[in-house]
């Protein structure tokens, strides 16, 4: 198998603005303390009013004292988040000239927020200027109890963000702020001889200011150089995380060379990277310019809201603390350098102090994960391609025959008639309804792919409408842009255009797309956008979108606009038939979590790709987009049976769990693997299904508070420094499940790290592990290393069914894992899994508390108040009961317990209790037999 073609993608040196800003950083570093940044905040311009500070930054250019005016706005939000925006006055006013007669807009792009931000912008009413301010600075107190402070230094312009008197985040402390202002192109006169020396120009290489060529494509760059860049430092923070999507470790590496470090910055430029490699800062399919920094007991974050090509350098300095940083002892400081090609400078600062606080605040702005359709968190069976209706039906039958659960079968591009979306191949998929009918019988679903490229073929209704309604992306001349993708010559729908989104909706209506039913959902691929013959396999940057914004400005947002349009199209495909959409995307941006799941693109059937998936999914999770997964088995190539087996065991812990394969690979559905592999894989799948109540509860937490679904150690144990960089083991939601699936070849044991002194128990055999540190767990092929942390209650449904939809009426099992004090607690969220009725109260949300002192288990209602649909839903769920309670790690007092007393809504009854003594390292456990309590009721179970 060949590797990624590096030559197809730019390095920083090949990307003019990146090279210029790196050179600028090198110049500043080389001049050290004599570096005099040209940016000053004019003190007389500063106005603080209603939680917002405004002023003008003056950029000194040339020797004549010429100044470029850059309006600054610092907004202090009610949530405790600060937002810093810098624009360019001349461009705001449209007082510039574009080259090549370009039709592009003159402003710096100012609509990224309208895509990424959906809330949390309420301005603080309590933020106030700190009267105790030294000269040359303005201090603003804000945040909870005004414990946060922003220090705005006037010359050179820089900022510090303090919490509890300690500096957490610094802007511009290295003097790398750079806003390349608009300038006319001056054709050089050769006769004039030497250019007049002036110290700014002497350092500037104009070679990349104007037209830039790469791989045979020339970018006309009608506005010339216009990059925005800023250095952001985290004093005392050794670890930074986030800025997906990169195939790298969770804790980001340094990017300016050195042993084990990268030479290139992390790049964010959504691209269809063919056969990407692991352990690389190269760009991939999606971009979330959000970063967290973490040190012992403190987490902070920054969100660089920019949709253009962006590069981020990371270096860590071990030198003495920055004199400006208050109260920070000598420690590692992480310095980052953010460089975007165009747009405003727009940065949000989150001061934590916990990782959950940062996630919540980021989620308030960009939105939380959409509460998915319940089926969407079950197992998805995909392949490029199931070749016909018969093939799909056959795979469906074979899963049943082998008693392997699955929920969704997928159709890749070959189902269409000649790659024309919204059509069916008349020969192979001539009868899509019979296929969906068979799937629907067992509550299964179909997902079909719909990509943004529309085939340019006469007589194709969709392309005819796209053209006649003028809804496609345009080239730099303002004519429809034509490029190549799967269908050959194609056009791209421009979902920045509201009219395009309305039109897109119409295409999904059942009366327009014959053969689609309410049990069919959508997969959006190639939305980076992938353009086979374009520069870096995407669109030319001087293409024009709705409102005449250049593609350059919005490139990383395009995928979100398309995904978003599909999401909205699916909500109501027929009047009155409203349901939650499910749309998978490959390209994404901050905010994409609101509109569906993502996957990590075209990975390979190799062990290193299996190992790479968890760090990538964890990074996505902390960047607010936890509904993530990798192709189980690896997209390219044929996995060995061991690898495929381990991949299913790992996949059972992907929030988005889908098996997928390239068209050139051999078939690999689990039932084809043979024994013992098929049975082992079935166990892994059934484990996922058994734990679906816990997974759904974790998704619910993500949907209301932005909590990651797979949680890295630093989220759960922010004070345990040994866990900060761990990215091969993780916790599942708040369940206390600690998993470390095997991702290496030939392993028969794993070393799992236990962060605290609590008791941990093997999920499958109740072997007890206690004491912080590394424990060795035997892990032959059939075993998934999975521990339960003491103190949690895990909801399960143990009855194997053909699909998750068929588990709807099944009883629950509660697994109570006692902590050292003999207590445990857990939650369960449940609703119909498909409609929006939960918004009207049609859900069950319980907290289960087991108390040692009262020897009782209580179910409490977490729903704040009943809604219009609460009663009806509870009635529907009345017969759904708890069939079994397993208590793990029980003490001697349980030996004689025979009976539990149940009090449910005023009615009393008894249930039998059975005790199982400990044996050979396995803890003692007990079972309460069929307490029969309804899952939606409040009740109490006491042990004598």
């Amino acid at each position: 198998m060949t590797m990624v073609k590096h030559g197809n993608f730019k390095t920083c040196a090949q990307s003019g603005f990146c090279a210029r800003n790196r050179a600028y950083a090198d110049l500043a570093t080389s001049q050290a303390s004599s570096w005099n940044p040209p940016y000053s905040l004019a003190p007389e311009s500063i106005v603080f009013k209603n939680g917002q500070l405004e002023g003008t930054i003056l950029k000194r250019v040339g020797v004549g004292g010429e100044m470029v005016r850059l309006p600054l706005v610092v907004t202090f939000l009610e949530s405790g988040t600060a937002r810093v925006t810098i624009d360019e006055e001349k461009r705001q006013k449209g007082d510039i000239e574009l080259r090549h007669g370009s039709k592009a807009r003159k402003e710096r792009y100012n609509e990224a927020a309208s895509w990424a931000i959906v809330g949390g912008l309420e301005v603080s009413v309590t933020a106030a200027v700190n009267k105790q301010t030294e000269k040359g600075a303005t201090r603003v107190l804000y945040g909870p109890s005004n414990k946060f402070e922003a220090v705005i230094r006037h010359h050179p312009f820089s900022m510090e963000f303090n919490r509890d008197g300690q500096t957490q985040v610094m802007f511009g402390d290295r003097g790398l702020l750079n806003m390349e202002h608009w300038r006319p192109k001056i054709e050089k006169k050769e006769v004039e001889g030497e250019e007049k020396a002036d110290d700014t120009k002497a350092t500037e290489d104009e070679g990349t200011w104007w037209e830039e060529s790469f791989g045979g494509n020339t970018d006309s760059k009608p506005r010339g150089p216009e990059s925005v860049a800023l250095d952001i430092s985290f004093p005392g923070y050794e670890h930074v995380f986030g800025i997906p999507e990169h195939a790298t470790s969770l804790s980001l590496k340094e990017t300016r060379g050195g042993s084990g470090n990268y030479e290139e910055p992390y790049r964010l430029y959504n691209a269809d990277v063919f056969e990407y490699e692991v352990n690389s800062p190269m760009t991939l399919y999606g971009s979330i310019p959000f970063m967290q920094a973490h040190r012992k007991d403190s987490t902070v974050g920054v969100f660089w809201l920019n949709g253009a090509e962006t590069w981020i350098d990371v270096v860590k300095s071990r030198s003495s603390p920055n004199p400006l940083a208050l109260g920070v002892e000598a420690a590692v400081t992480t310095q980052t350098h953010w460089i975007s090609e165009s747009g405003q400078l727009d940065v949000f600062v989150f001061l934590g102090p916990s990782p959950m606080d940062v996630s919540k605040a980021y989620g308030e702005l960009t939105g939380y994960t959409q509460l998915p359709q319940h089926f969407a968190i079950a197992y998805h069976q995909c392949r490029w391609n199931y070749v016909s209706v018969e093939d799909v039906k056959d795979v469906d039958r074979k899963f049943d025959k082998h008693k392997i659960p699955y929920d969704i079968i997928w159709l890749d591009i070959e189902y269409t008639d000649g790659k024309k979306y919204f059509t069916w191949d008349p020969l192979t998929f001539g009868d899509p309804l019979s296929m969906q009918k068979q799937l629907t019988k067992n509550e299964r679903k179909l997902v079909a792919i719909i990509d943004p490229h529309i085939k340019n073929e006469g007589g194709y209704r969709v392309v005819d409408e796209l053209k006649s309604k003028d809804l496609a992306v345009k080239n730099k001349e303002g004519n429809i842009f034509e490029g190549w993708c799967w269908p050959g010559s194609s056009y791209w729908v421009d979902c920045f255009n509201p009219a395009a989104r309305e039109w897109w909706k119409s295409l999904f209506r059942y009366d327009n797309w014959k053969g689609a039913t309410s049990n069919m959902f959508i997969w959006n691929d190639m939305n980076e956008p992938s353009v086979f013959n374009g520069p870096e396999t995407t669109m030319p940057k001087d293409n024009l979108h709705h409102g005449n914004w250049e593609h350059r400005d919005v490139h990383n947002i395009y995928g979100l606009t398309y995904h978003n349009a599909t999401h909205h199209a699916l909500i109501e495909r027929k009047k009155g038939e409203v349901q939650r959409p499910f749309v998978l995307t490959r390209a994404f941006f901050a905010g994409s979590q609101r509109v569906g799941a993502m996957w990590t693109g075209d990975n390979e059937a190799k062990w290193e790709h299996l190992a790479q998936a968890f760090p990538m999914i964890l990074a996505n999770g902390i960047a607010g987009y936890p509904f993530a997964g990798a192709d189980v088995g690896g997209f390219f190539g044929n996995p060995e049976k061991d690898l495929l087996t381990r991949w299913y065991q790992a996949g059972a812990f992907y929030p988005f769990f889908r098996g997928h394969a390239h068209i050139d690979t051999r078939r690999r559905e689990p039932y084809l693997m043979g024994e013992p592999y098929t049975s082992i894989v079935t166990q892994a799948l059934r484990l996922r299904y058994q734990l679906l109540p816990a997974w759904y509860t974790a998704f619910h937490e993500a949907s209301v508070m932005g909590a990651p679904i797979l949680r890295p150690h630093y989220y759960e144990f922010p004070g345990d420094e040994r866990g900060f960089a761990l990215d091969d083991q993780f916790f599942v939601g708040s369940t206390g499940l600690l998993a470390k699936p095997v991702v290496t070849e030939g392993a028969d044991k794993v070393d799992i790290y236990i962060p605290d002194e609590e008791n941990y128990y093997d999920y499958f055999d109740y072997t007890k592990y206690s004491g912080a540190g590394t424990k060795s767990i035997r892990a032959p092929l059939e075993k998934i290393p999975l521990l339960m942390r003491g103190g949690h209650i895990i909801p399960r449904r143990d009855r194997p069914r053909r699909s998750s939809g068929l588990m709807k009426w099944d009883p629950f099992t509660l697994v109570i894992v006692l902590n050292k004090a003999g207590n445990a607690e857990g939650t369960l969220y449940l609703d119909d899994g498909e409609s929006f009725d939960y918004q009207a109260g049609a859900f069950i949300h319980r907290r289960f508390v087991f108390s040692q002192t009262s020897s009782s288990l209580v179910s409490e209602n977490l729903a704040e108040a009943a809604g219009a649909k609460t009663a009806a839903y509870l009635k529907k769920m009345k017969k759904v009961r708890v069939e079994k309670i397993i208590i793990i790690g029980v003490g001697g007092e349980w030996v004689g317990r025979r009976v539990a007393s149940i009090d449910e809504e005023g009615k009393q009854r008894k249930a039998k209790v059975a005790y199982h003594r400990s044996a050979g390292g396995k803890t003692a456990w007990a079972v309460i037999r069929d307490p029969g309590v309804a899952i939606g009721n409040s009740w109490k179970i006491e042990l004598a």
Partner: protein
Amino acid sequence: MRKLNTFLLIGTAVGSVIVAESTGPRGVGPEFAKFYKSDGTFTCISNPSHHINFSQINDDYCDCPDGSDEPGTSACAHLSALSPSSPEERSPLALPGFYCNNKGHRPGYIPFTYVNDGVCDYDLCCDGSDEWESAGGIVCENKCKEIGKEWRKQDEQRKKALRSGQKARKELVRQSSRLRKEIEDGIGVLQIEIRTLELKVGDQERQLADVERSEKARLVKGPAKGGRISVLANLAKGRIEELRTALIDVRSQRDTALERVQELEAILYKFQEEYNPNFNDEGVKRAVRSWEEFVVRKNANPDVDRAAQDRDLDEISKPDDKENGIRWEEWEGEELGDTDVLYKFEEYLPKPLRTWIDNKLRDLRVFMVQNGLLADAHHSSTSDSKAVTQAREALDAARNDVNSRKSQLTNHQEDLTKDYGVDDVFRALKGQCFSKDSGEYIYELCWLGGVTQKPKKGGANTGLGNFVSIDKIFVDDEIPSDGKGLGSGDHVALRYEGGNHCWNGPSRSTLVVLGCAEKDEIWKVMEQEKCVYRMEVGTPAVCDSADEEKPRGKDEL
């Protein structure tokens, strides 16, 4: 525990359908009813040490490690090696599933995982008894009457088809054995012929020896004049004949090569047109570029006029006779004893041959010199006389006859040892072809020949493999209602391999799996993975008489 729904007992038992009344608790099949005699306690079937209260049977809680306390619910469905492991005691399930009475149709077991899951699994449980709890409000009406009726109708058709398939197979077997007999007879005839011909060869050998002896005697009297020229002429004639044959061979090789080039060019044109630039694969791009350059070069230097060349070659390739080529008779008995004649040789040649032969002639000369023919002009060797030649030719002819019969005999003998399947049945079918229109393509299968995919939109046929062997494979499918499917069990499968090569992959192959049918018919063609095909084919050739008695699997209806 509820009683069995009474409507189960309604409905008519028809014909041969066996109706087994369950007398035990819900979900218990008649063969297990004996374990469920109520005497207050119940003993788990495979775990006799476990005794539970009889009221715990079917209370939707799993008590027995073998699940035998929950014959009528899904409470023990998790007791399986396919479920995540747990410290709870587990034995293999004691019961095959939930027993559906299916009065009016055939009773059967449905997996416990299907019980009370909110789906009416009529294909297994036509009486709807699997959904007795009405999970989520589902009501599964008893449909055994209509399903049973439909099934019996189809079963009758299947049986009919099977019977006529069996009949057809008998006919095939008869044909095969006749064909076999013919071959065996043929072998006998050939053996006799060979013996006869071998005798003839002996005669011819003797004759030749006689003639040679008498010729030698004649030669003693005086060597014939011009003998050397005769020798030369004979040698040249042989050599020319050899060259002519070689030319024909080379020409046909050239034609094959040209065809291949054309095929390759077609592939490359298609490749150039259809390759996916998405992958930005430098290798592919380079290949496309080189191909484009090749096309340019090729167009600049068009191929030589092949028609003209072919006309020349046609001329050259004609055997020598009065009109064409060299008149060898003129050379026989030629008086000139001079080697010079050889240098005038060209003058005797027809024009088109002359230029071409010029080079060859040089080779011939070299050959002759090497064999001492040109250098040693005064050697006393003599040529064979006409009589000797005739005798030798007769001998050769006789020998050829023997050899060709011997090879026929070997073929026949080998054919008899070849695998033509049980009862030699495919012998009768060999070479017969039939096809199926699958929309985009027509698929053709030739018994023990090849599998071909013919695009309907035009373009070249694709070979999906040539017959290699007869095999047996296990298939676990359900038979669709039209009967055109394999079902569960061992099936005869024909392997076809070495079809057209796949781009970037193996050569195409097809596994042809056979099921019993009245007549030859391709049921289904699937490309299971790239370039690996599977064909399901109905044919009387595999309608064993045993099929009729074969019991149906529990989940086949």
